[in-house]
C-alpha cells in the first residue's frame, strides 16, 4: 500500500470503530454515532487538505485543567484514578469538543513512586499538592557515552540511562547484553545475573510497577471506550519525538547537547541518526496498539532563539523530518507541537509531504504559519494559555473569529488551545468551543 492508501485505511478504521471483542462498537445513541462519525470526517478533511470540512473542527488539549476545574488537587489527579476518570468524563461532556486526547495527562503517581522516578518532581515529591509535575533537567547521559548509545541504544538505555532516572532499576546495570545469548555453549552464563539480589529487587519492582500501570491504563482506557460510545473520539494514537529533543530533553539536557554541538558534533549527528528508526518504530508501534494514526511529537529545542538557522538546519531538522517521513510511510499522521515561538523556522518546516501532518501551534503567528506550513499541513491552535486564564469570553471569541478567518480559510485548520493548559476560566474554554461550532461553519 502507498502512504496515501495506508492513511485512508486508517481513517476508514476510525470510521468503523470496534469494541474490545472486535465487534462493531455499540454507540449509546444514533446521535452519538452521527456525532462521532462527523468528527472523524471533519478531522480527516482538515488533515488531508483535499476537501473543505463542513466546519472548523474544535479540540481541547488540556494538561491539568479538567482536574483543577473539578476542584481536585494535582496530587489527587495523580493518585486517585477513579476521580481522575470522573473529572475527565465530566469535562468532555460539559465542553463537548469534537475530539480529545484522553485522560492520561496526570499519570499514575503510585507507579512513579514504585520505580523511584528521579526525572520529575511531582506533588508530594518535591512539589506542592496543587501544582503539576515538573522535569528535573540533568546530564543523565554523560558526554563520553555517545559511542555506547550509537552502538546499541537499547543496551545503553537499559544499563545506563534507565537506572539513573529510576532508582528502583539499579539492578539493570548488572545485566549483560541480550545479544550474547547465541548457542548452547555458554548460554547459561548470560543468566547468572538474574540470581543476584539487586537484579531480583529490580524485577520485583517491575512486576509491581507493571501492575500499577495496568490498573491505571484500565481506568483511563475504559473511559476512552465510553467516550467513544458517547460520540467523542480520542485522536491520540501515541507519541514519539525528534532525535534532537530525545537527546536534548532527557539524555544530555539542554546545556549538554548545546556543548556537544561544538565539542563533538559528528557523534551527536550519528547518535541522532541511530535514533531515527527507533523513533519511527515507537510511533508506528503505538499507533498499531491504539488503532489511532495521530502520533504526537512535542518539539522543544528547535524553537526560535534556541538554535541559529544554520544549527537548526544541520542538527534539528534532518532527523526530525526523517522521523515524520517514516511515520507517514507507515500510515501515521505526525502531530508535532510547536511549543513556544517558531516563526523563524516556518520556511524550513513547510517542506513536508502535503496532507499528512497536523501541527499544534503555540505562540507562532497563525497568519504567517498559514501562509507557509499551512499550505502543506493542518494547523491546530492557537488560543494562548494566558488568554484562557486571563481574558473574557468576548475577547476569546474575537480571537477565535480572527483565527477562523485567517488560519481557517479553505480548511486545514482545527481550533484549539496553543499549549497544554492547567488553570483557565471555564467560561473562556466554553466560549472557544461554542463559538467555533457556531461561526466556524464553512459556507
Amino acid at each position: 500500500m502507498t502512504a496515501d492508501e495506508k492513511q485512508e485505511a486508517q481513517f476508514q478504521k476510525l470510521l468503523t470503530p470496534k469494541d474490545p471483542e472486535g465487534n462493531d462498537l455499540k454507540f449509546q445513541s444514533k446521535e452519538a454515532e452521527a456525532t462521532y462519525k462527523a468528527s472523524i470526517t471533519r478531522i480527516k478533511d482538515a488533515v488531508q487538505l483535499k476537501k473543505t470540512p463542513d466546519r472548523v473542527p474544535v479540540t481541547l488539549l488540556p494538561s491539568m485543567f479538567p482536574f483543577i476545574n473539578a476542584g481536585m488537587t494535582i496530587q489527587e489527579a495523580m493518585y486517585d484514578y477513579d476521580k481522575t476518570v470522573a473529572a475527565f468524563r465530566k469535562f468532555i461532556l460539559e465542553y463537548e469538543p469534537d475530539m480529545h486526547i484522553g485522560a492520561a495527562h496526570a499519570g499514575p503517581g503510585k507507579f512513579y513512586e514504585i520505580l523511584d522516578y528521579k526525572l520529575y518532581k511531582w506533588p508530594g515529591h518535591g512539589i506542592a499538592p496543587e501544582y503539576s509535575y515538573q522535569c528535573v533537567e540533568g546530564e543523565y547521559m554523560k558526554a563520553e557515552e555517545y559511542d555506547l548509545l550509537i552502538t546499541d541504544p537499547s543496551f545503553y538505555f537499559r544499563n545506563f540511562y534507565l537506572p539513573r532516572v529510576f532508582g528502583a532499576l539499579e539492578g539493570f546495570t548488572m545485566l549483560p547484553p541480550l545479544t550474547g545469548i547465541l548457542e548452547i555453549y555458554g548460554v547459561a552464563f548470560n543468566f547468572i545475573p538474574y540470581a543476584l539480589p539487586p537484579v531480583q529487587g529490580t524485577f520485583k519492582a517491575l512486576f509491581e510497577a507493571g501492575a500499577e500501570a495496568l490498573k491505571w491504563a484500565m481506568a483511563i482506557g475504559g473511559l476512552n471506550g465510553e467516550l467513544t460510545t458517547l460520540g467523542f473520539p480520542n485522536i491520540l494514537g501515541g507519541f514519539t519525538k525528534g532525535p534532537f529533543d530525545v537527546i536534548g530533553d532527557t539524555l544530555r539536557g539542554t546545556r549538554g547537547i548545546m556543548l556537544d554541538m561544538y565539542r563533538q558534533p559528528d557523534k551527536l549527528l550519528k547518535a541522532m541518526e541511530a535514533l531515527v528508526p527507533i523513533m519511527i518504530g515507537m510511533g508506528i508501534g503505538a499507533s498499531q496498539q491504539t488503532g489511532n494514526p495521530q502520533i504526537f511529537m512535542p518539539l522543544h529545542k528547535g524553537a526560535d532563539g534556541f538554535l541559529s538557522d544554520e544549527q537548526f538546519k544541520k542538527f534539528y531538522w534532518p532527523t526530525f523530518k526523517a522521523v515524520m517521513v517514516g511515520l507517514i510511510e507507515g500510515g501515521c499522521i505526525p502531530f508535532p507541537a510547536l511549543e513556544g515561538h517558531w516563526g523563524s523556522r516556518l520556511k524550513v518546516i513547510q517542506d513536508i509531504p502535503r496532507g499528512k501532518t497536523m501541527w499544534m501551534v503555540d505562540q507562532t503567528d497563525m497568519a504567517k504559519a498559514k501562509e507557509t506550513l499551512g499550505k502543506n499541513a493542518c494547523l491546530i491552535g492557537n488560543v494562548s494559555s494566558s488568554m484562557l486564564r486571563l481574558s473574557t469570553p468576548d475577547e476569546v471569541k474575537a480571537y477565535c473569529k480572527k483565527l477562523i478567518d485567517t488560519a481557517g480559510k479553505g480548511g486545514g485548520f482545527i481550533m484549539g488551545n496553543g499549549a497544554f493548559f492547567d488553570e483557565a476560566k471555564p467560561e473562556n474554554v466554553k466560549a472557544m468551543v461554542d463559538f467555533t461550532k457556531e461561526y466556524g461553519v464553512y459556507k
Partner: protein
Amino acid sequence: MAKDLVKTLADLKEEEVLEIVQNRLNAGDDPLRILDDARRALEIVGKRFSDCEYFIPDLVYSGEILKRITDMVKPKITKTAEMKRLGKVVVGTVAGDIHDIGKDIVVFMLDVNGFEVFDLGIDVPAQKFVDKIKETNSKVVGLSGFLTLAFDSMKETVEAIKKAGLRDKVKIMIGGGQIDDLVKGFAGADAYGKDAMEAFKLAKGWIGG
C-alpha cells in the same frame, strides 16, 4: 596578545583560548588582566547575541569556556579587583515553578553585560524577593516562570513587593514559557520580555549605562 584572547574567546575557539590563557599564565601575566580580557570577550558575545548573530548555544558555550578559564586562573589570583557594575538586578523563578533554563540565560546575559545579578534560584517565595531587594537595594527585579501557575505566583510576588513599600523603588520584568503582555497586566509588572535580549534591554533602559 591581549587582543588575541578577546577575539578568540568571542569567536568561541575553545582549545585556542585555553592555550592562550596557559601561555599567558606561564609568561607570568597578571591573572586579573586575563579575566578582564575574558570579560570583554563575553561582552562581545552578549552583543552578538543581541544582534541575532549568536544564539543560545553560543551563549552556553561561551559560559562554559569562561568557566574553564576561571578554573585555570583562579589559583593564581592573590588580590581581588573591584569590578565596576552598571547596577543591581534580582532574578528568580517564582514560587511553585522549578524551571531554570530561561532564567539562567537571562542571568548570564545580564551578568556578561555588566549588571550585578542576584540569582535567587527556583521556586522562590515572594518574601525572598522582598528581602533581597531590601538587602541589595536593587532597582530591577526579573520574575521567571514556565507554567500557568506562575501567573498567580508572579502576581503574589508583585503584591508582596508593593506591601513592603518597595513597588515604586523597583522596576519589575517578567518572562518565560506562557508569559506574555496579558500576564504582565494581570501580575502588575512593568514589562514582559520575550527573551534574554529583551531582559537585558529592559534592565539597561531602567538602570542606564
